[in-house]
């Protein structure tokens, strides 16, 4: 593929863009991205820091998401370029992480003459200095998308071509069920113990001591992840309360999914959660483990309150996480970058 191929492609109105990714990242987020209708091609490799497979337990592979044959060994960049299908004229390269992915994406961008779309899911780590953050800001693309104002602001990003696209949730897939809900507290997190600093495992232990809990997610000696999205949805639908303890996750998608499935939610009052949860209206926001425990016990004892919160939470997701809005905003980004 020559740089001129992309220029020639721009002369025709295309309904679908061809987007090159360098590793699966957040499978359910990427499934939502695929709802935009464009073609996604994912390079798999054994590159450092790059996820090496799509986890079908998190979501099935969408029909417009093609996983290319894995490349390994030395000269990874050259091998990646050689493995690209010659019949595809790519429009962009897509980075979903500033660490691990962006560096590879940048090299591909230079080699193929393609603009970069950079998406960031995370906040900055608490121990980073201002100078470090300023350095990381040099990792910028033609479009720089953040999942919330909160994580954009932690990255101190106020540059050009920066936008916030809030999560979309497929409310047809994630919806309340008809079964009776267990009066139990559900949490869902992978590697919960080891990632205590960002997921709040300690908070969970303190807040839920002796309370009925259902723990999901791949955490050694603690819990297993559901085998499929359908199984996960079943757990949301049959749990009355969902608990989010993460102090450093801008907005956990499992929290939004639980709300879409009509769970009553208790969340740490952190990051972007207050945008989705109005305290006392569609859930509870707690400042520490002690408050969390109070609210959890309140909900466990009050079925009416659980129903009220569950219905309100569902409505919030329908309003704020509309997939139509999500796709429209992403299409706007793709169209703007395609003209560069």
């Amino acid at each position: 593929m020559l740089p001129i191929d992309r220029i020639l492609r721009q002369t025709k109105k295309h309904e679908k863009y061809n987007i090159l990714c360098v590793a699966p990242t957040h499978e359910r987020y990427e499934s939502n991205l695929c709802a935009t209708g464009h073609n996604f091609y994912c390079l798999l490799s054994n590159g450092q820091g790059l996820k090496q497979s799509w986890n079908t337990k998190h979501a099935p592979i969408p029909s417009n998401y093609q996983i290319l044959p894995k490349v390994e060994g030395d000269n990874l960049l050259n091998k990646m370029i050689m493995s690209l299908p010659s019949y595809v004229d790519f429009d962009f390269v897509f980075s979903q992480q500033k660490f691990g992915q962006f560096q590879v994406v940048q090299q591909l961008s230079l080699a193929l003459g393609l603009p970069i779309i950079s998406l960031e899911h995370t906040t900055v780590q608490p121990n980073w200095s201002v100078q470090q953050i300023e350095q990381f800001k040099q990792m910028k693309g033609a479009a720089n998308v953040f999942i919330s104002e909160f994580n954009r602001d932690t990255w101190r990003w106020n540059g050009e071509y920066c936008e916030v696209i809030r999560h979309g949730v497929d409310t047809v897939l994630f919806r309340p069920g008809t079964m009776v809900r267990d009066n139990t507290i559900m949490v869902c997190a992978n590697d919960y113990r080891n990632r205590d600093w960002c997921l709040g495992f300690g908070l969970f232990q303190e807040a839920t001591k002796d309370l009925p809990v259902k723990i999901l997610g791949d955490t050694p000696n603690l819990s297993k992840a559901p085998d499929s999205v359908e199984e996960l949805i079943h757990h949301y639908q049959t749990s009355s309360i969902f608990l989010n303890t993460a102090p450093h996750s801008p907005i956990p998608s499992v929290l939004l999914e639980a709300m879409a499935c009509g769970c009553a939610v208790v969340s740490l009052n952190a990051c972007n959660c207050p945008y989705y949860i109005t305290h006392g209206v569609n859930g509870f926001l707690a400042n520490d483990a002690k408050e969390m425990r109070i609210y959890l016990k309140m909900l466990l004892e009050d079925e009416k309150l659980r129903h009220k919160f569950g219905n309100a939470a569902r409505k919030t997701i329908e309003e704020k996480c509309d997939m139509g809005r999500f796709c429209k905003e992403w299409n706007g980004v793709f169209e703007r970058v395609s003209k560069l």
Partner: protein
Amino acid sequence: MKVLFISHHNEESGVGRAAREYIRAMDKVGLDVVPRSVKLGLVQESPEDIKKLEEKSPEGCTHCIQFLLPHQMRFSGEFEKCVAIFDYECDNFAASGWPYLVDMFSEVWVPCQDSLRQLSQSGVKSDKIKVVPHAVNPSRFKRTPKPIITSDSFLFYFIGDVNNRKNLASVIKAFHSEFGIDEQVGLILKLYKHGINPQELQKDIVNYINQIKTALKLYPSVDHYKKEMVITDFLKDEDILNLHHSCHCLLAPSHGEAFNYVVLDALGEGRPVIASDVGGHPELITSGSTDGDNGFLISAYTESPVEGMLETFPQLGTGFENWYNLDITSMKYAMRQVYRYWCYECVDAGLYKKYSENARKVPEKFSYEKVGNRIKELLCSQ
């Protein structure tokens, strides 16, 4: 008609400048031109006027012009016309494999008649090759010049990249073997080479010149020769024009050229040019006419295999191509003539002044309107 113009117009080079001037020429005559850049080497930001045109969407373009290295071109049958522009400096490029790429296009545009011949010799069908000279804005020369060198001497000068093709050696040899150390003449060399810092280049050039001087054996030591002024620092465009203005006669003895903006700029500043009879030079320089002379074209009919072009692509500038060697004796004669005209201004009926006035008229032939209309005519033709 909407024209997609794809080029290396962000390059800091003659090719980059040619592309930018083509864009301006097309815009000047009302063509709806959408420029798009393919980056190559030393890249600069687009000037404001071209940036504005770059904001246009390429959607719906009916015609496509590609002014790129052929291995970066891509013919597309989606356009009413898909044109390649190609500049080359040697007698053919058949061994490179590029003629086949270029031949796919509806038309191939070249900057001068010599290039038309080169492409035909290389295997491109002659009926699709058209001459479209490079463009220039004549008003660029209508400004108050600021001399950057002051001297009582007559100054010959050379501006160019340091490579074998530009034939700097002929300049050194001709100057020193023609003019004595007591004559009121000087030699200015404005040189550049990509990837080498000015101080290092200065040292390399002085060594190179001293080697030539040693080999000429005109004087007991190199210190006895006249000293050239060697400028290797970066000069802005306006300062380059001021340099032309500060000197008296440009020397351009290249083995091969496509068009040569340095010659055009010298003429625009009213400076006679002594150049090899290659490439675009015959279309810029009038020599041997009754009244319209603006310089000297030195015959360069002897061909020899290209050599020493190690910085280019491996398949280009090889010994399979030929370039032209100018007759240094004729060059020396021309230098002496121009110097005489300047020295004896009143005796030789003001010939230097006449050459200078004739030189100033040349840019008008390559104005944005003239070149733009030529492009329009070709795009509209069947």
